[in-house]
């Protein structure tokens, strides 16, 4: 076995393959489709203080090599997560990253405080980049000074590793990466979905009820690799890369570009066992290539 262990702040993952938020439910939905303990970790559906019903239908549409979604952060709320979801997950041996979002700074802090205290939650992932809600989410991720302040405030109440998930819908992602680092964040995950839109030309209606949604899937991978590369060159904290990963080579691209770990999102819908498969393939690859420790692969991009 090659050494696939990676560290995200104080959290050690057995391998760098993580299932991305919004594509993996609350974990147990995948219990019969893969071994939850065999993947690095999974990130929960984004949690809010109160349950949320989400956006009107239609919420998803398929686009070339991708899809657009506007779910609107529908979730059970943090109380139901703790009572109904977490006990079973705890027994599964999974490493759990709790993804969360608020509408105000106070809500972010309160959620972080709650999740930090929960046995079975190993790290927190702060969503400041959802394109599909009116308030909160993306607003907090579109001003570096505010993002730094928010990160610092949340980190004060959060002893567990704090990952901040960045939006690609900015002119330059580097100041945001720096803001997370300056605010004391333990890691960055990038990228969230790209704002996108699709029109049914027969009906002349948008194919998503809210017109604009978030584009994900293999279509966005080159944009994601570029942004992960930019983030990794800007900060010293780990960058978790995601955006369109569908194969071992895709995961390797992100790692070589500077990602310490990767997340798999949309492809969980198509191939529910993909995270475990990629973790196994990564191990086989390292053995074949005689890479003793995955660390030597991370950021190994050759540019000259």
């Amino acid at each position: 076995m090659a050494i696939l262990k990676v560290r995200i702040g104080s959290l050690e993952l057995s391998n760098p393959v993580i299932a991305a938020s919004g594509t993996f439910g609350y974990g147990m939905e995948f219990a019969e489709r893969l071994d939850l303990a065999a993947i690095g970790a999974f990130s929960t559906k984004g949690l809010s203080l109160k349950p949320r019903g989400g956006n009107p239908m239609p919420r998803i549409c398929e686009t070339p090599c991708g899809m657009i979604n506007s779910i609107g952060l529908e979730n059970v709320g943090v109380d139901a997560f703790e009572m109904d979801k977490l006990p079973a997950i705890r027994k599964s041996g999974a490493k759990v990253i709790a993804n969360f979002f608020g509408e105000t700074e106070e809500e972010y802090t309160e959620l972080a405080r709650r999740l930090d205290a929960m046995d079975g939650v190993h790290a927190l992932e702060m969503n400041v980049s959802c394109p599909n809600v009116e308030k909160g989410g993306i607003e907090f991720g579109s001003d570096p000074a505010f993002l730094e302040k928010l990160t610092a405030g949340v980190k004060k109440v959060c002893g567990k590793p704090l990952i901040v998930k960045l939006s690609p819908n900015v002119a330059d992602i580097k100041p945001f990466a720096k803001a997370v680092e300056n605010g004391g964040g333990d890691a960055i995950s990038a990228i969230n979905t790209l704002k996108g839109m699709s029109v049914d030309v027969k009906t002349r209606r948008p194919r998503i009820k809210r017109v604009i949604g978030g584009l994900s899937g293999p279509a966005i991978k080159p944009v994601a690799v570029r942004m992960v590369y930019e983030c990794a060159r800007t900060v010293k904290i780990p960058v978790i890369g995601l955006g369109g990963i569908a194969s071992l080579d895709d995961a390797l691209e992100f790692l070589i570009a500077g990602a310490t770990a990767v997340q798999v999102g949309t492809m969980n819908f198509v191939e529910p066992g993909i995270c475990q498969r990629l973790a196994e393939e990564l191990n086989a690859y390292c053995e074949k290539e005689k890479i003793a420790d995955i660390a030597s692969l991370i950021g190994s991009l050759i540019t000259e």
Partner: protein
Amino acid sequence: MGKILENRPLARGYYRMSFEADFAEARPGQFVMLRVGLTHDPLLRRPMSVAGFENGVCTVIYRSVGKGTAILAEIREGETVNALGPLGNWFDPPSDAKKILLVGGGIGVAPLRFWHRRNGGKNAVAYIGGATKEDILCKEEFAQTVITTIDGSAGTRGLITAPLVSALEGAYVLACGPKGMLKAVDDLCKEYGATGELSLEERMGCGFGVCLGCVVDTAAGKKRLCVDGPVFKTGSVQWQF
């Protein structure tokens, strides 16, 4: 991955595919998510209602309406298909139901055909509607049928809800078809004293409850069509168009 034993046109634009399933059983009303090729375009699986399941062979009926189903129609017998399933709940009429009406529109006949094959159905009458005679599928497979088409090319001209009305009193309805038809059936059941189950269809991302792309409003709150359905009791769906 299952070997495709049959993939052929059933009527104009409609196909029937049978493949060796890697799951042991499916029940009428359940669906599978079929992967269309192994490239990323189209990316998502396609939900298909199970139209039959015997001796490990799963049958689906689909209409070639877009890029994905057009590719599916080109797959040859002997090649393989990747199916995730069986998914969702199933038709579950009470065992003492005296009169069962199977109401299907277009491709919605698929799960009704399956139910009929499983349960015989001496006391079941199939009401099958479509735009033209080409859209009336599987009619020869039911013991008793009532047919309507919008253009009058088969059966009575009009909507299937017209002949249904007089049969509804005290009946138990199993229906699958376009949303407009299902809402009309739902309303008529309430008006004429029938109960039953409606199988809804919707675009889906995953088919197993995590993408939240196929939610439906019901009397009991927001439900995921793929795992809380696709079959819902009459009177429970809050219809939105």
